[in-house]
């Protein structure tokens, strides 16, 4: 009997191992975890969660990664000899790096989790740079005072690299946000060049980078380059919900260049991800872009209804696929606004309200540029 369930766990694990990152893989590992827990096998539960944290992190389920890690962290504290925290340092970084994306987690909890990382890393006399980067990113995303963000940015980049530092490519990609925040478009592109040329890559790079540089390229008027980046980049993110916010960036670019039909195709294809995505930050990026897109459709003024294949889980789902543009716009904008409110309330700042207000700026910048090569 007991051999039986163990074999079952191993077989779930092997099946998951054979899958690409995504929902199926996560579900299989969750089941393996539950089976191990049902039989009170802590060692097996730990091992399966170890794999689940990876799958959930890279498959777009940061909440599941968080729950699995919390359990493991509990075991580490009870028996650090058996469950060595150091072996999970990278996973701890992934998980804690994302908890700010859940508006129901308080500021204090975020700070405490970051302090916990710092304490853990300190015990092995390493990881200072990694922690500083996480603190910089938390401060940036929660809209803390510019001087504080700037201070952490400098501290991060001045600190020596070590084995807990993200790879150079990932760090380079993260540096781009800082320049984009300041509108330093040239600098974004200069730094991104090795990534864009395909000379440097990593698990999620260039996928993310190709979304980040779209707006800078648009601002600089490099539309042909932007079009090529959009084509290449969107193809890389279309299958994994982990890239919801990058899809949002592509959708915004399509609206900015007046490729409305293409934009609506992205909306119908990926709305299902946004509806139940655990990362509210990613949902926000997507809904804000969707609201901008639908605003453009309204501005075009030639139709009140669009035909879309939206998922059943959409609260206003229409069986005939006909959607009132005004209502859809109001709904997406409402979602974006709700999330922005929740974040800003939690953070005690107005960063998300400002991000949403950016849509008005974008409306004045639209510059039609066809993505399809027109038939001559």
């Amino acid at each position: 009997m007991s051999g039986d369930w163990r074999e079952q766990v191993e077989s779930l694990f092997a099946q998951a191992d054979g899958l690409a990152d995504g929902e199926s893989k996560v579900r299989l590992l969750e089941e393996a975890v539950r089976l191990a827990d049902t039989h009170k096998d802590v060692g097996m539960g730990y091992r399966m969660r170890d794999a689940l944290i990876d799958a959930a992190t890279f498959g777009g389920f940061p909440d599941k990664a968080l729950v699995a890690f919390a359990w493991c962290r509990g075991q580490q504290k009870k028996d650090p000899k058996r469950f060595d925290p150091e072996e999970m340092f990278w996973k701890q970084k992934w998980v804690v790096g994302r908890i700010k994306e859940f508006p129901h987690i308080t500021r204090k909890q975020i700070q405490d989790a970051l302090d916990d990382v710092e304490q853990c890393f300190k015990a092995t006399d390493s990881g200072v740079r990694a922690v500083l980067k996480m603190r910089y990113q938390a401060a940036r995303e929660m809209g803390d005072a510019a001087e504080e963000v700037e201070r952490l940015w400098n501290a991060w980049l001045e600190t020596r690299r070590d084995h807990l530092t993200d790879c150079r490519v990932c760090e380079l990609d993260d540096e781009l946000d800082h320049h984009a925040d300041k509108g330093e478009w040239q600098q974004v592109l200069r730094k991104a060049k090795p990534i864009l040329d395909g000379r440097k890559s990593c698990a999620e790079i260039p996928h993310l980078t190709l979304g980040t540089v779209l707006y800078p390229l648009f601002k600089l008027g490099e539309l042909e380059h932007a079009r090529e980046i959009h084509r290449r980049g969107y193809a890389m993110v279309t299958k994994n919900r982990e890239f919801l916010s990058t899809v949002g960036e592509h959708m915004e670019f399509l609206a900015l260049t007046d490729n409305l039909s293409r934009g609506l195709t992205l909306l119908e294809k990926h709305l299902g991800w946004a509806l139940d995505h655990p990362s509210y930050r990613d949902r926000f990026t997507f809904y804000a872009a969707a609201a901008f897109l639908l605003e453009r459709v309204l501005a075009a003024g030639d139709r009140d209804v669009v035909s879309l294949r939206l998922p059943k889980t959409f609260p206003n789902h229409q069986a005939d696929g006909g959607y009132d543009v005004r209502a859809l716009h109001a709904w997406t904008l409402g979602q974006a606004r709700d999330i922005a409110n929740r974040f800003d309330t939690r953070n005690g700042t107005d960063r998300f309200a400002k991000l949403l207000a950016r849509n008005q700026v974008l409306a004045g910048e639209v510059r039609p540029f066809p993505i399809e090569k027109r038939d001559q």
Partner: protein
Amino acid sequence: MDHRFQVSLRGVIDLLSHHLYSSPGVYVRELLQNATDAIRARQLLEPGHAGTVRLELMEKQDGSPPTLLFTDDGVGLTEDEIHRFLATIGESSKREALEARRNDFIGQFGIGLLSCFMVCDELLVVTRSARGDGRTLEWRGRHDGTYAVRASEHPLAQPGTQVFLVARPDMAHWFTATRLRNLASHYGGLLPFPIHLTTGQGTERLDTSGAPWRREYDSASERRKALLAYGRELFDTDFVDCIPLRSTAGDVDGVAYVLPASPHFNSRQKHRVYLKHMLLSESAENLLPDWAFFVKCVVNANALRPTASRESFYEDDALAAARESLGQSLRGYLMELAREDPRALQRLIALHGLSVKALALDDDDFYRLIIHWLPFETSMGMMTLADYRRAHPVVRYTSTLDGFRQIAQVAGAQGLCIINAAYTHDTSLLEKLPHAVPDVQVEPFSSADLPQSFDELTLDEREATFPLLRMAESVLAPFRCGAVVKKFYPAEVPTLYSSDAEGAFRRDAERAREESDDLYAGVLDSVMAASGSEPAQLCFNLHNPVVRRLAAVADRDMLKLSVEMLYVQALLLGHHPLNAQEMVLLNQGLLGLISAQLGGDGGRGGEGSGGAGPRGLH
């Protein structure tokens, strides 16, 4: 007159051997490539020129390192061209420069020669150009960077090029008859002209007879047989079928072989690719669209760009277009199977369902053609979607394996046919159905939907089970679980526990919280507070004899204990791990039942002997 290279040749050789090439054996490929280019260039000048390549291995009696003489009757080089290839060598210290120069004849010639320095210290090239003044020139180059160019004292009778390589002592094992035969056949097996190999044992002609997929065959079945045999020889695999490949973009043609077993997802198929009939790589990965991992290919391309290492194709628009049209070849094959030979298609789906499904998700026409042939696991056994729809007007599915397990037995007994769509792509495929086929209803199904199909109680039964229901409600409330009593099949199942996916996640979070200290316990409380799960439900089955008897039990302690145990049992049957509180129920409940057995007479829980805790000890 001696010259000196402008660069440190050591550095270039180091770059080549450590960073560019996978093995010193590629020197044979590079020389063959040069010979091929030269012969092709001469054929442009003199249509009808056949072309021959000769390899002559001269082994020394005294045991000193052997010499290889590599001869072609191609176009040869003029003095000017010799200086140009030397210039190329000079520029070759950067990978990017190498890549760029690969595309012109002279550049390639120089880089090709450089690779020889991986196996020898000195090279002698004797050449006579078909375009020049008839002089024969020789170039002697050394690995230290010195070289000399002069008119040769041994003029060649015909245009062509000879390369002499004296093996470096530590590399002599790359200069044996067997190695040369293998390497030359390996890289040049598809060349449309002969390669002769002369060794101590005499001269032989290596088998180079062009691409087998371009040959004429007497019949389609002869062709298939020959190509499958070729596939077996190349890949040492008995393939299921072969599919012709053709793409105008990149000028690609070849064969795709259907693998006899499902490949592992992560192991992207490695294809054998030739560039202008020279073997480029046995492990090219970027040739086919992502979904097409059910085949292994051998192809020749004439107009794709190789990477600097010449071991795969450069990712550019031409390759993207070629990939698209090779994908179309495979899609065409599958479409034809669906129309002409559905049984063969079903066999293929059994082996390579993942590929077929991935394509169907992206391609609406293909989807419509094959969706009904796809087999699904259901609560009533395996069936194709066509069979399913014949018997059941509404397509119902669960998207998780856990969810399916919870309902499969009961649903089957109730005559409900539910598809297990937990396997990769299945949920997306089913959700696509209403968009592709008009008038189909598709609905997700979970254990929470099951009780709707159950029979309601009669008024009498309702009254009779009311005490049980009230007790269950109060026992289960602390576990965020409601209770109902209904009638369903199979009768052996006493209860059914149902919860939505959020509910399962919530239970995971509860268990994690039990293991956590302040920090993460607080975080998890926030996570649980935000989760929008419906309460779970325990449904009692009045068809079940135990439940019927339980409804009649008057002893409230016994009733409570039984409900608790049925709850725990339902959780365990549904693979829901118990949280700490539920573990307490289980442990106390077991003790309670034992003490009821020991204390009571004949196992009927009377006189307060049943119940939780230490009551049996008094």
